[in-house]
């Protein structure tokens, strides 16, 4: 048994070998998807589920998913970002203190970025970030009651691409789209854009996306292409990017 983290991403005792009959179906809050008394070992539960006595109850709408041996979760779309450890995020500095920065990452509460959580930072040599600056960081801890903490270095202390994001343009997209943008292999829209243009991009799991390119026109184009791609199939996305590229390339 492990402890539960903020989102109830924890385990549950008992359970059954037989999967719930609701797996793959769309479920709504309050639905009882599994009777835990029907024998079984350990059932692991993820987001959108909660144990109530001997029942497994849905708390968020979505599709019930199941992986063997016995992990259940509800796959839904939550637009509001809820931080999880090791997520990469893009945030904006909202407050500055001697020891730490307060960063808005669009979550339920603001995050805390210690002034020393940068590659090579010391008490004397801290990065100079001001209110309103963007930063690309990694979530290092979350807890229900304290702010999530961030770091601008990887586990070994290297910058690894994290850090302040100078200039550029920051925009918001859905967390679902952000996930697509971050997925491997590279999603269609980014591949298409990358084929024709050169730009810098930082995508946070929190749906904040930062773009910088040589000209404002290209920056705006990239941003628009990304936002437009949300409800398009890969083929549609490629066509959309192509037509956008044509517009810029024509004098």
């Amino acid at each position, binding site marked *: 048994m492990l402890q539960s983290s903020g989102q109830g991403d924890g385990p549950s005792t008992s359970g059954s070998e037989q999967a719930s009959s609701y797996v793959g179906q769309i479920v709504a809050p309050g*639905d009882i998807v599994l009777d835990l008394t029907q024998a079984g070992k350990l059932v692991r539960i993820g987001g959108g589920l909660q144990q109530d006595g001997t029942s497994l109850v849905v708390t968020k709408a979505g599709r019930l998913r199941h992986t063997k041996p016995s992990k259940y979760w509800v796959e839904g779309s939550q637009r509001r970002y809820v931080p999880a450890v090791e997520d990469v995020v893009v945030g904006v500095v909202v407050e500055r203190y001697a020891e730490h920065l307060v960063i808005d990452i669009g979550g339920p509460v603001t995050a805390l970025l210690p002034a020393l959580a940068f590659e090579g930072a010391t008490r004397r040599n801290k990065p100079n970030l001001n209110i309103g600056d963007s930063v690309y960081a990694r979530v290092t801890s979350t807890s229900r009651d304290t702010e999530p903490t961030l770091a601008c270095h990887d586990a070994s202390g290297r910058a690894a691409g994290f850090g302040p994001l100078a200039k550029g343009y920051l925009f918001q997209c859905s967390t679902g789209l952000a996930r697509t943008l971050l997925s491997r292999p590279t999603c269609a829209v980014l591949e298409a854009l990358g084929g024709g243009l050169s730009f810098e991009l930082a995508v946070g799991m929190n749906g904040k996306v930062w773009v910088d390119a040589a000209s404002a026109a290209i920056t705006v184009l990239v941003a628009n292409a990304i936002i437009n791609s949300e409800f398009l199939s890969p083929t549609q996305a490629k066509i959309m990017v192509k037509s956008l590229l044509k517009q810029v390339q024509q004098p």
Partner: protein
Amino acid sequence: MSSQGSLRKDGRTFNQLRGMVCDRGLLHRADGSAKWSQDGTSVLVGVYGPKNMPPKREDPEKAVLEVLWKPKSGIQGPEEREAEIILRRTLEAVVLAPLFPRAGISVVVQVIHDDGSLLSCAINAACAALVDAGIPMTGLLASVTIALAKRDDGAGGGAHLQLDPTREEQDGAQATVCLALETTPKAATSNGSVEGEAVVTSTTRGAMAIEEYLEALDRCRMASRTINAFARLSLDKAQRRLELPGT
């Protein structure tokens, strides 16, 4: 009131709800939204959060729910202020607020048109919007208003119960009852209750016999199942639409 046999002015039977429409995710800047219409009555609800709260208003043990009720036009009056409070306490019955300590969840209600049964329409809309926002909840709610039409003199018999009344029916009624009910979930276990859907919220206007109230409650229970079935259908549709690209 209704001269043609057992039909109402708009052609409905006494026990018939108006046509429902629910659109989810209309507001792009909100974390969740839903527009719920019952023919002429229509409410748009946006949900924002869980989000940062000013330290003065936060609760260290749970998320704070706030409701803002915007009338169709003009500014908030005492009635709207009361509706705001009733709606908030109703939603508190289902929102799992302890999961987000110190955060806030805002529910913004915009009345688009009021042709009767407004509070019910707003509760249904708010519930759909919270689901759309992915706010963890213990279950779904369904709300129904019912009107007790004045007895026709000489006609004898009890008051007619008119489900989901229009503004005109509501204003002409001897009494109205607005209820928000828990819905019966899909269940893998068979320990369903036999008592029927329990009442989360009840407000009434006008005088009636206790028996009339209880009869109204039973009618509302039946109607709430229709509403719940509709809400789930609309949820299914919305979910499928979201899943379409990408996969």
